[in-house]
């Protein structure tokens, strides 16, 4: 299942964007980490994007969830 151009555009990331995202997520990345993480994240997004348009089930499975658990 190929990644759609729309998806690529939607998730186009650059170092500045990742730096901002990292700061927002309280997960600061050192400058020397940015290129490797950016490359991995682009690859990851390309794989994740293949779920665009795939049918969804009704609810997510709450694996292991039991309201009695404490």
């Amino acid at each position, binding site marked *: *299942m190929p990644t759609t151009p729309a998806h690529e555009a939607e998730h186009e990331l650059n170092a500045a964007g990742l730096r901002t995202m990292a700061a927002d*997520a309280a997960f600061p990345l050192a400058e020397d980490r940015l290129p*490797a993480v950016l490359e*991995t994240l682009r690859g*990851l997004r390309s794989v994740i*994007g293949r779920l665009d348009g795939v049918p969804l*089930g009704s609810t997510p499975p709450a*694996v*292991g969830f039991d309201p009695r658990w404490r």
Partner: protein
Amino acid sequence: MTVRPWELPLAEVSELIATRALSPVEVVESALERIEETQQQVNAFALVTAEDARRQAKTAEAEILAGHYRGPLHGIPLGVKDLYDVEGLATRSGSLATSDAPAAATATVVRRLEEAGMILVGKTNTHEFALGGITPTVRNPWDGEYIAGGSSGGSAAAVASGQCLVATGTDTAGSIRIPAAACGAVGLKPTAGLVSRTGITPLSWSMDTAGAITRNVLDSALVLDAIAGYDPLDPGSLRVAVPSSAATLDRGIDGVWIGVASPSFASPADQEVLDACVRAVEVLQGAGAHVELVEVPFADAMLPIHRSIVLPEASSYYRELLQSEGDLIGADVRQVLEAGQFVFATEYVRAQRVRTAVLSAWHELFRDIDLLVSPTLPMAGGRAGHPFQDWGPAGEEPMRNAVIRLTAAANVSGFPSLALPIGRSEAGLPLSLQLTGRPFEEALVLRVGRTYERATDFVGALAPVSPGAIR
């Protein structure tokens, strides 16, 4: 030449121990000798607990001589993946970033195996944090130029080279089945929720499964019988009836319906892998199984679902460690965990929702078949140190994707899945068939594997580890 105990299959060792023809002391000593003579070539073990093992073996010997034989696992050497806690030993998870403080308690699976009488001989190497299907620290005992698979690479290499008869593993994307396939061993990923994960370092709460790698199918059934069952300490553990898998192993497979995954599911794949799978299915057909070709629902969605779920979960678990000890984490694992911090919550939930659609479709598929078979790995051996698998005209595929491409589906669905040796490639590397069954039907999966095991000579073969075999 006299056969040494480490060369014997588990069933034979058990029989000899039960009849007092062989002492656990001799069995453990033989395993330790084998580790010593092959560890340098294979590097399966992160830690060898020789003195403790010798002490436990003496205790086992005394128990058996006193008439307290515990069963077929009593006195059998066990390797434990270094992701499992063992009281008094550090759990390093294949990483320099983890603590060297000893664990305060033993993982439920290890405790149950120890209660069955197994003797820990050491902790086996894993791909760092179990996040990878390669285990670069371990060499394939059949040929050191090829990967041992991962993440339970040390466990599979240890079993395949005769260093122990059973080793525990974990399977989040295929980490029991991939190394079992690469090393020519038997690997069972049980149904999600059947085997406790208490005391095992998590990678992905919703995909992690604990299990074992063994030399034979019979061993796999014996181990599963010992470790399966509810554990209140694991929130993912399920209260289900656990019938003995070993008890029904030899009942045959007459009338069992086997669905063979259509070629598109495994494509691209090496032709000799596909040919070996066809021959294996013919063996099962000859034993009375019905065979039909089936389409695997959501085949293309498995990897995206898997990545969307596992990486955020793993990145969440390791978030603090990444920030405090990131420089000590290997480059490949670190950048994946860092990238996982930036997967959107909506993407994670979407993948979990697609997963429920997968479950519905798989249950529908298994109304018509009892078992789904495919290759375990698409390649006949993955070259060590090569980040890409070359498929010729079909292009290159990242090795980390190629090794999990056919196994991750059983983690997404949670169904039980077995890696079964079915021969060797022209280059002499193990080939493997993957058999996936309905939830909690491990007994049937193992029965089919056992039928194949009895009909051929491929299951149970030991790797010829020697300086000449490891380049």
